[in-house]
């Protein structure tokens, strides 16, 4: 063997020997028992979780089968409701056909529209102001309905003639002369009633207003008579505010 080869062989042997010593020194090295205990705990926890998951899956499967059983019943109920709705729709349309509104009824309905209208606030204020100014003059005071008639008749100092109201009641002018109007409008509310209001203390006051006031309530006005005032009946409440207005055209 050559000296170089001998030296190389000896180096190899040195390395092997050194590694063998290191191997022997660490041959018994092991992980601590604490690590094993931790791992066992983790294994138990994982097994517990897996068991819970399996139980949850089984419960979910049972619930799923219950849902599957309920679906046909739900669909049948839905179908039944749909059929009932269609039948009701057909019957309703058949019963509604003969009573369809005629043009005359439509017209009547259109004519009724101003009854439900509420007077503009400015006009109501104007009427209130006028009624307040002329309240002292008190051209005519009477009640607005039959029941009010009875109350007014029972009230001391109220004459029977003054208590008569309505379409059949004669209109009295400021001078006390009877004057039958050529045309009357219906009473138009000028304010929205708040709550349930008592009829007691309502007064019917006739007064003259500018004719353009009629336009504010959507009533037709002859342009040629625009400069002339128009008579109107105002229902005045106990607070002095106008509840409703009716124009008396001559």
């Amino acid at each position, binding site marked *: 063997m050559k000296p170089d080869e001998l030296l190389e062989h000896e180096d190899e042997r040195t*390395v092997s020997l*050194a*590694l063998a*010593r290191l191997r022997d*020194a660490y041959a018994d090295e092991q*992980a601590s028992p604490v690590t094993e205990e931790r*791992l*066992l705990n983790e294994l138990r926890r994982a097994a*517990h979780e*897996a068991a819970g998951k399996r139980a949850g899956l089984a419960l979910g499967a049972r619930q799923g089968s219950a849902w599957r059983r309920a679906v046909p019943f739900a669909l049948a109920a839905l179908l039944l409701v749909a059929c009932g709705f269609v039948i009701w729709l057909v019957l309703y349309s058949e019963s509604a056909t003969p009573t369809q509104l005629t043009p005359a009824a439509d017209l009547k309905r259109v004519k009724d529209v101003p009854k439900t209208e509420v007077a503009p606030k400015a006009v109501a204020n104007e009427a209130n102001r006028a009624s307040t100014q002329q309240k002292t003059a008190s051209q005519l005071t009477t009640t607005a309905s039959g029941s009010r008639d009875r109350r007014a008749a029972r009230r001391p100092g109220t004459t029977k003639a003054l208590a008569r109201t309505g379409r059949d009641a004669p209109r009295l002018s400021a001078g006390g002369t009877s004057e039958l109007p050529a045309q009357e409008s219906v009473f138009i509310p000028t304010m929205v009633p708040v709550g349930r209001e008592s009829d007691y203390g309502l007064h019917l006051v006739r007064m003259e207003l500018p004719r353009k006031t009629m336009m504010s309530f959507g009533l037709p006005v002859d342009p040629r008579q625009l400069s002339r005032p128009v008579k109107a009946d105002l229902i005045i409440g106990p607070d002095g505010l106008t509840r409703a207005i009716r124009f008396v055209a001559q």
Partner: protein
Amino acid sequence: MREVPGSDSELLRAIRSGDEEAFRTIYSRLQGQAFRFALHMTGSRTLAEDAVQETFLALIHKSEGFDAVKGSLAAFVLGIVRNCVLRRLKQEAAFVSVAGSEAEAGDAREPAADSNPLTELGRSETVKRVRDAVLSLPLHYREVVVLCELEEKSYEEAAQSLGCSPGTVRSRLHRARALLLTKLKAIENGPEMLKARSRRCLA
């Protein structure tokens, strides 16, 4: 008492279903080499413990990746340990080691009672030098030295753990031994020379 199934695949299946006996069987068989591999690779007992724990946790939760056709369970476990160690070393590279912690790996060993104290001292000094030399090797050389020389694995088993061919393991081991010899000589001559040689090897 229930019989523990024998093959590695069956044992792993039993572990997944929560069988503690199967786990103890696997653990007692593999934890030693896993711990020593991690200890030689990191030089730290704490990191080695962590690596072993992480490895067996992976075995509990995600052992579906094991294929008995590709290799043994020991090679599979050592592959997991290697990945854990490399990850931990990458994390630890950001920290500066405190003086004294480096020596924790080998100082736990006590001398045998019946041996000569001088002989034992010399032997422990030698072991320390060799351990320092192994720890100073580059990682891809260090792992083949640990597997083939210290754990006495065959080239095929080491290749299965490292995910490379047996030829690569052989050539790396040859270079690693040469490098180790150089380092051992350098340690004998002085630590300064060891640092210089190490720097050149890493370059």
